[in-house]
């Protein structure tokens, strides 16, 4: 029965395996120690002090309490009504914000999708085009959209146009990169199939690449929409339209209840959109390859 086991042990593998396991353990320990050291170093450099964190926590609670007015159960409807005294105006601004985010996502995604092919190593027209498009995409997403917004407000004036453009440019950079990465992971077989049919580059991309990457693209796009909704909120701070202007005023003038009311409204909006986009995404990507 057991005759095979001693033969295995005798083959001289044991020292080899032990040596290997020891080496792996040393490497893992070194990596963990290095990582921990790096985290501590950055925390020190960035002035992240646990003492201040602990001391500040009560004040965080204080701020949260300030943002919610007194709500009595007896008069809950009146109290909430009073809290949301400006709800009509806020909802209109919130709608503006959602539309800004949607339009910017659409524009940026279309641009990013078109550029993504030249930024994919497997589909690009050549190393020069690849290099240029990659740099363009990097620039578009390296500059924060708030900075773009300030520049565009300066050029195009106050209002949603500047905000939409700013977010669209940032979205183009982000989507272009993400899409390109999805493009680089496609199975190239179908592409050669279309090429062997006499298809040109556009036809190869449309019929062999796009069907493969579309589910990924859709899910990136919904995710980006959610990010852009937050961006569109913040971007109002510099006068680029939407509910941000109102939120900024409330914060600046220490209208704590208004701040709380608007933040809650934005959060609810994100929940609703997140839920809806999740459903839509699952339906569209339902048949995706596992």
């Amino acid at each position, binding site marked *: 029965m057991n005759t095979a086991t001693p033969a295995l042990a005798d083959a001289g593998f044991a020292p080899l395996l032990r040596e290997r396991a020891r080496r792996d353990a040393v490497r893992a320990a070194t990596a963990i120690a290095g990582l921990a050291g790096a985290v501590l170093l950055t925390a020190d450099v960035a002035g992240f002090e646990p003492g201040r964190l602990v001391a500040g926590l009560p004040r965080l609670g204080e701020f949260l309490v300030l943002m919610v007015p007194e709500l009595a159960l007896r008069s809950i409807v009146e109290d909430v009504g009073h809290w949301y005294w400006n709800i009509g105006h806020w909802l209109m601004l919130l709608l503006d914000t959602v539309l800004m985010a949607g339009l910017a996502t659409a524009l940026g995604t279309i641009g990013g999708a078109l550029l993504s092919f030249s930024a994919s190593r497997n589909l690009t027209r050549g190393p020069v085009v690849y290099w240029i498009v990659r740099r363009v995409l990097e620039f578009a997403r390296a500059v924060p959209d708030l900075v773009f917004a300030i520049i565009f407000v300066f050029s195009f004036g106050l209002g949603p146009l500047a905000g939409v453009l700013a977010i669209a440019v940032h979205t183009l950079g982000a989507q272009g990169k993400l899409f390109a990465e999805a493009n680089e992971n496609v199975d190239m077989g*179908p592409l050669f199939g279309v090429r062997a049919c006499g*298809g040109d580059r556009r036809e190869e991309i449309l019929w062999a690449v796009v069907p493969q990457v579309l589910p990924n693209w859709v899910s990136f796009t919904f995710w980006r929409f959610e990010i852009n909704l937050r961006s569109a909120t913040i971007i109002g701070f510099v006068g680029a339209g939407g509910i941000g202007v109102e939120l900024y005023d409330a914060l600046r003038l220490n209208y704590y209840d208004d701040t709380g009311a608007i933040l809650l409204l934005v959060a609810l909006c994100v929940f609703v959109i997140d839920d809806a986009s999740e459903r839509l995404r699952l339906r569209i990507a339902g048949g995706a390859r596992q």
Partner: protein
Amino acid sequence: MKASVSLALMELGRRFGEVEAVRRVSFRAAHGEMIAIIGPSGAGKSTLMRLINRLVEPTEGRILAGDRDVTALTGRTLCAWRAECAMVFQQFNLSPRLNALTNVLMGSLQRHRSWRTLTGLFPHEERLRAMTLLDEFGLAHKAFVRAERLSGGQQQRVALARALMQRPSIMLADEPTASLDPRNAAQVMAALRTINRDRGLTVICNLHNVGHAREYCDRIIGLRQGAIVFDGPPAALTDAAARDLYGAEQDEADITQATPELQTA
């Protein structure tokens, strides 16, 4: 159906860095001939096949189709040549998320203007033709099923329909049966033979199954280390000759896999 064009390879060669995948290959394929190319893995069979439709660029030699110099084609004329010599692949290479009918319609890309090929608005007659071809392979009922949902044998038959949709004069088949079970493999080989006989197409077929080569083909070309070492009718390929062909180098690197990577920035 277009008349078959005679095809001549002249001193054709392809080098990947230090490796000579295909070296000085010359042969002439007659109208309506069915040729098997056999040889061990890494002998350069796939590369040779891809040189013919220029999926791989030759580094030496010339290809003539009739009086056209295939090696000199560029742009639209190159696409037209690819449409004229259809290819089926070992891995079928259908677009997995498109349905069978759309995959077959890809075979008609060359015949239509961009506004049709980039919108998918193919004319009704073409759609009908694609459907008829699917029906010929017993797959009309799968027309609206995504290619990825079909079995290997079904996918290869869709690929054959797509190839015929191109109205080719030459059919290239790169290991068309290697991913299939024996029954499906035999079906696909029989289909290729039928295409060759009934439509008069020249068929050139890479095979690793010497039995299939003997059974279905008029002529066998043996390739070893990129060069032709046998060329003759099945009867001339003795068991000794076949053994010799597959002989020693079992561990040769698989040249077909060695596609050079694009330099990244």
